[in-house]
């Protein structure tokens, strides 16, 4: 599966860190990082590899959160089914929105996704089952497969880690498959991809659905962890946050979104008491990164290692 030995090494080290982490850090914070890492990776599949900037990914994340919260809390479904239902609904939603927005290109697509997300926000705001401003809570943490007791945060952490690894592994495989290569070709030169005979719209649509579905899984898992689905999850601010995470980590890099998610979630955790300042800080990070560091942390790292090897050669 992993052809590049360096990726294997990085992957193994990351998994080892992830397995040992709950001994050092509060598990709920770690689970939040994992959720957003999956969300940002799914988003990056679309932005970094298909070149589509969606400004409405909160609609997939948030709808799935509502669906899983509703099915688990009100309909009494098992947790794993609730999460799957959330992902499935998000994928269907991704299909509908994707069909409409690939009819336009570039910046218009961005505005269309934002507009549809806003429409869904209003739908959830007034829909009777969402609990309005209070949200849907508390979502019970029912045992996974009837035997894994997830009321304990540490146990749930390993379940979330497993969900994350499956989702992230899927994204990794998609990016390194022939399908992923075609996506990159479309991103870099769409007319050329068309002239080579690829059905560009179909590739874009599949990428859109995949990204939406996996964002949904992340959102549904989030609802289980925090036992809550709320309007925050479908608000445009959430769409902005996932863009910010991806930008911080590095657009188009595989591990970048993980770093970005950890960075932003960690920052929010530190600034939690400062209220509106979080918005200001996020805005400043956006402006700074766009001006001076468009490739994010991963770009900075690869730049540094590049310089280091050059430096060694000179010696």
């Amino acid at each position, binding site marked *: 599966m992993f052809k590049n030995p360096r990726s294997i090494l990085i992957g193994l080290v990351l998994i080892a860190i992830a397995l040992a982490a709950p001994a050092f850090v509060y598990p709920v914070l770690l689970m939040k990082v994992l959720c957003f890492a999956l969300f940002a990776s799914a988003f990056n599949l679309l932005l970094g590899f298909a070149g589509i900037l969606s400004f409405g990914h909160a609609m997939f994340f948030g709808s799935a959160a509502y669906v899983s919260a509703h099915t688990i809390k009100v309909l009494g479904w098992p947790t794993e089914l609730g999460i799957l239902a959330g992902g499935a609904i998000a994928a269907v939603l991704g299909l509908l929105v994707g069909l409409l927005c690939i009819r336009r290109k570039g910046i218009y697509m961005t*505005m269309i996704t934002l507009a549809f997300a806003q429409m869904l926000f209003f739908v959830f705001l007034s829909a009777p089952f969402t609990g309005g401003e209070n949200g849907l809570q508390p979502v019970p943490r029912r045992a996974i497969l009837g035997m894994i007791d997830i009321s304990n945060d540490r146990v749930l952490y390993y379940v979330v880690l497993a969900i994350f690894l499956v989702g992230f592994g899927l994204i990794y495989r998609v990016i390194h498959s022939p399908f992923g290569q075609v996506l990159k070709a479309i991103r870099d030169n769409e007319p050329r991809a068309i002239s080579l005979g690829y059905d560009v719209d179909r590739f874009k649509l599949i990428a859109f659905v995949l990204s939406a579905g996996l964002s949904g899984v992340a959102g549904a898992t989030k609802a289980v962890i925090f036992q809550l689905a709320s309007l925050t999850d479908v608000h445009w601010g959430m769409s902005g946050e996932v863009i910010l995470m991806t930008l911080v980590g590095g657009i188009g890099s595989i591990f970048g979104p993980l770093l970005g998610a950890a960075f932003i979630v960690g920052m929010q955790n530190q600034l939690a008491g400062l*209220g509106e300042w979080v918005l200001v800080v996020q*805005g400043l990070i956006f402006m700074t990164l766009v001006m001076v560091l468009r490739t994010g942390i991963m770009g900075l790292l690869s730049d540094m290692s590049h310089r280091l090897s050059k430096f060694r050669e000179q010696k």
Partner: protein
Amino acid sequence: MDMIFGVPLPLLLGQLVLGLINGATYAILSLGLAVIFGMLKVINFAHGAQYMLGAFVAWMMASWLGLGFWYALILAPLVVGAGGIVLERVFLRHLYDKDHLFGLLFTFGFALVAEGLFRYHFGSTGQIYSNPIPGGMQLGFMFLPYYRIFIVGIALLICFGTWFVIERTKLGAYLRAATEDPVLVRAFGINVPLLITLTYGFGVALAALAGVIAAPIQNVSPLMGSHIIITVFAVVVIGGLNSIMGAIITGFALGLIEGLAKVFIPEMSNTVVFVIMAIVLLLRPAGLFGQEQ
């Protein structure tokens, strides 16, 4: 009482006037977006924030300096527009040769900073700005406040003034030419970078002007910008960004449709613009007035 489709006439007309006023705001804002996009190829996400800034500058002038509405109507757009010029000169300028999405992300960041700072300072409830033209006309079937007539009038004046400058004057000809082919226009000795800066300043000033006009009819709140900007994006998708007249007509029309929706299908009044956007995308993907490049 007169009824139309089961709705009392005064209610219907009242909502139509409100819709026309909202439409006036949409028209001015989408006009500004279209003007900026034409020259800079940047979607100005900060447009909503600059609209909010316009309203707040007017409010600050009134409550801190004692300057009334008519001063603010001229001064606030100048102040916010000057801020826009600084933003363009210092930051946006360096993004034109990069992927267009970075311009969008930068202006989004600016919008977050502006909204965050004002929310920190003023809270999210909003300030009251007094009506500069109190009173109104009793038309028999409804009461029409003078200020609402003023809004619609001044919005039409601004929109068609802008249209006239861009489509019918020499300066507008330069602008349109620079939109098509900046390199060639530069070769004729026209200072295109200056044109770009002034265009951004003008677009931002338009947003601020819309904010000043809106201040007396709604609370001056830090949230007013992010509420309206997404709807305006939908308006822009429906109308297309290539046509000045398209932006104006679509803005007014969608305001009116929203007003009608409030009367006939109130549960859809928030979403009707987005539903229309979906329908337009299905039937005429390039937008009502647009051509896809």
